[in-house]
């Protein structure tokens, strides 16, 4: 399993040197022969769209994935065996801060800071006073105003991110003594932070680099990468698209490296229908968690895509519209009936003709340990009521018929939902809502974890529903998917719609470009 045979000569110049990393998932190459080098004391950016191989690379470094044979990894001149064990990664000075920071909200700052030590140490007694003094010393060293005795739940999102980063830095500093300053991998730390918070975070990153560590900064945001990093590696479709000096590379060149300029080869979309038809559905001034002020309209039978970078609000809109997350203001008009969105319950949203298919398949959309038939018939239970009670035979028959229609495999309605593959689960859950013939179907990442074959079937089912008059809203980070199914795409940034792509502009590249273009702050946009 190790790449020991092909180990390169020792490189003193690099803190981290990965060579020829590849990863294949069931025939699909997620990463192909990627080289990745991080210098001592540098902030190195890692850029790429969803599916570019960014997270696969990070997961190989953290030991979560075993790479294909043939690659090698050198940390501070020492060759590490691949797949690397998490404890080995830590010993070699690698520490990770993921987007969900791994803090325990109900414990104090100090307890969270030391959680890794407590887990590993054999020491019996904890000298809390000394630990608190140490923590304060660390915080003051980086100019952070964190109270060690405060509960983490009372901290702002920025403070939490800062705490998680300091903790990772401390972990590296404490565990390794013989090699250089360690490497912190920050995986998308900024999407949910306000601008002032990002500045604070960058100040901390600079402090950490000044202390001798290296930082890998994974991000979607080109401007942040240009601000904080000295060099950046860009991945595209699992391959290395380039490693550049970020300060000397114009913004547009970075965008081109990220999204590529290859010609679109195929497109399975239907022609936009009824362009002249008046809108059947109007959303006015929707606001709520993640969404600032959004208005748009849809025609009957239109498939509308919502896109944007993480944290831009596009993925929050469906849940807000369906009442799954309470909206603070706004209204929706569906075929001349206007419903206020503030205080809308999921039940009332359904009565108004909406249906929501959430992204969290077995957490919010369906119940894994109940049968396919139970799951699929839930919204239409009253229709199976007979004089003697629910007609269980008819329920199974309906589930079987819907399963056949949507090509669910195996089509056995009595199986628990979790026994099906992700794609088949999604077909079942889509059928659950399509049978109610909603006027507005809201989908959040409908094909996440769905194999290619099932994906096409889901697109076909959506297309069929749209032809029958259902208007569809699809929020997705998969631009290719949007280009295939949507006739129009709205691009979000900072909770607002910043671009609308129609017709020939609805391509993977144009959507990606619009998403990345949306990022620059106003003063740089000109």
């Amino acid at each position, binding site marked *: 399993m190790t790449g020991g045979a092909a180990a390169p000569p020792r490189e003193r110049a690099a803190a981290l040197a990965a060579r020829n990393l590849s990863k294949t998932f069931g025939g699909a190459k997620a990463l192909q022969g990627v080289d990745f080098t991080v210098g001592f004391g540098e902030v190195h950016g890692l850029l790429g769209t969803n599916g570019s191989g960014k997270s696969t690379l990070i997961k190989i470094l953290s030991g979560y994935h075993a790479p294909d044979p043939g690659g090698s990894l050198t940390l501070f001149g020492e060759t590490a065996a691949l797949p690397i064990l998490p404890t080995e990664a830590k010993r070699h000075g690698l520490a990770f801060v993921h987007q969900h920071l791994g803090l325990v909200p109900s414990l104090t700052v100090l307890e969270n800071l030391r959680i890794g030590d407590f887990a590993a140490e054999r020491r019996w007694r904890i000298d809390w006073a000394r630990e608190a003094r140490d923590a304060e010393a660390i915080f003051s060293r980086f100019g952070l105003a964190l109270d060690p005795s405060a509960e983490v739940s009372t901290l702002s999102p920025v403070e939490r991110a800062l705490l998680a980063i300091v903790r990772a830095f401390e972990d590296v500093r404490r565990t390794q003594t013989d090699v250089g300053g360690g490497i912190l991998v920050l995986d998308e730390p900024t999407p949910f932070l306000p601008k002032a918070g990002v500045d604070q975070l960058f100040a901390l990153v600079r402090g950490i680099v000044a202390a001798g560590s290296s930082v890998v900064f994974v991000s979607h945001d080109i401007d942040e990468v240009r601000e904080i990093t000295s060099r950046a590696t860009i991945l595209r479709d699992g391959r290395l698209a380039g490693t550049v000096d970020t300060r000397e590379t114009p913004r547009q060149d970075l965008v081109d490296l990220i999204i590529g300029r290859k010609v679109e080869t195929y497109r399975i979309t239907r022609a936009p229908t009824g362009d002249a038809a008046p809108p059947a559905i109007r959303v006015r001034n929707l606001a709520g968690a993640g969404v600032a002020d959004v208005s748009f309209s849809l025609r009957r039978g239109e498939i509308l895509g919502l896109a944007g970078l993480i944290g831009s609000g596009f993925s929050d809109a469906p849940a807000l519209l*369906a009442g*799954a997350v309470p909206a603070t203001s706004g209204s929706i008009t569906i075929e001349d009936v206007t419903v206020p969105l503030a205080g809308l319950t*999921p*039940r009332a949203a*359904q*009565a108004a003709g909406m249906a*929501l298919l*959430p992204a969290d398949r077995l*957490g*919010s*959309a*369906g*119940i894994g*340990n*109940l049968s396919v038939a*139970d799951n699929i018939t*839930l*919204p239409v*239970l*009253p229709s*199976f*009521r007979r004089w*003697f*009670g*629910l007609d*269980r035979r008819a329920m199974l028959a309906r589930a079987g018929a819907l399963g056949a229609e949507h*090509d669910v*495999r*195996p*089509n*056995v309605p009595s*199986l*628990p939902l*979790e*026994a*099906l*593959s992700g794609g*088949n689960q999604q077909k079942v859950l889509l059928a659950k809502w399509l049978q109610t013939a909603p006027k507005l179907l809201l989908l959040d990442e409908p094909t996440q974890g769905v194999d290619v*074959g099932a994906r096409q*079937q889901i697109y*076909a089912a959506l297309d069929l529903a749209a032809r029958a008059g259902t208007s569809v809203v699809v929020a997705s980070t998969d631009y290719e998917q949007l280009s295939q199914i949507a006739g129009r795409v709205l691009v979000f940034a900072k909770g607002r719609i910043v671009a609308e792509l129609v017709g020939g502009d609805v391509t993977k590249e144009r959507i990606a470009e619009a998403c990345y273009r949306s990022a620059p702050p106003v003063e740089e946009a000109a």
Partner: protein
Amino acid sequence: MSAIDPAVRSRAASPAGGVSLKANAERFGLLAAWAGVVALFGALSPEAFLTWINFSTMFSSQAILVVLTLGLIIPLTAGDFDLSVASTMVLSAMTVAVLNALHGWPVGAAIVVALGLGFLIGLINAAFVLFFRIHSLIVTLGTGTFINGTVLWISGSQTVGGVSMALVDWVIVQRVFGISLSFYYAVILCAALWYFLEYTSPGRRLLFVGRGREVARLSGIAVDRVRLLSFIGSGVIAAFAGVLYAGTTGSADPLSGLTYLLPAFAAAFLGATSIVPGRFNPWGSFVAVYFLVSGITGLTILGVDTFVQNLFYGGGLVIAVALSQLVRKRQPQNFS
């Protein structure tokens, strides 16, 4: 939608026969274990154990536990614990005794008040759980203890006897095939609850609320209302168990009924491993109660001390939960 997919193979290969055999073994395992216990004690002590009088006594006397367990599985299905059921039962029995025997109320009116108290307790439990978002375990532990105090208060910590013979007559004295009517009440309630859970939409919604609150909410189910009604259901049924308790003994004592709490939980969880494995279900609970009781009765007949009750109920609860965990793990995870 073409049909070239690896899933076709797995469907063809899916061993339908083998699965159903295993499923049946799971469904009727507890029933077989019950038969095994009966056979064992029948062989060891045929003249005492294998008599109709022994069985009719078991069936009659444990009907109260069956009813109490049925009340308990309603909130359990909805994903909530109700630790106050035994206390509610004792309060109900005591209310009947105090109003009927001490204050001379007609027994019918006393029963209505007792059932009304059960309703009220369900409402109070639900109010604290749903309004303040406190875990049901904590709320019902508190209300249960509070009710125990109330019972001691209204009874003056004394056993109150002299409950109307009409009630005793209708609960324990009248017999069909040598078994008291109380057993048939339990059977009727069991059938009614089974019908409710399996063949009505509120019953299905109850299940969905228990298995996935978020899914239920997003599917348009009024989750809080379902949970409220489930607490009221357990309160009223526990109160009904209390009426049977008063009728069985012709009196009410403030403490002995409290020992029913753990057996009811044991029966509910043990019952969830059979008949409809993986789900709290009425017939499974029914079988579980009589399985546990048969074991205890058999050992008592053999001369083992009364501590065997605790061994059986306590051990039964833990083993039942362990078994249901095994059942869950054995489910196939992926079919394609």
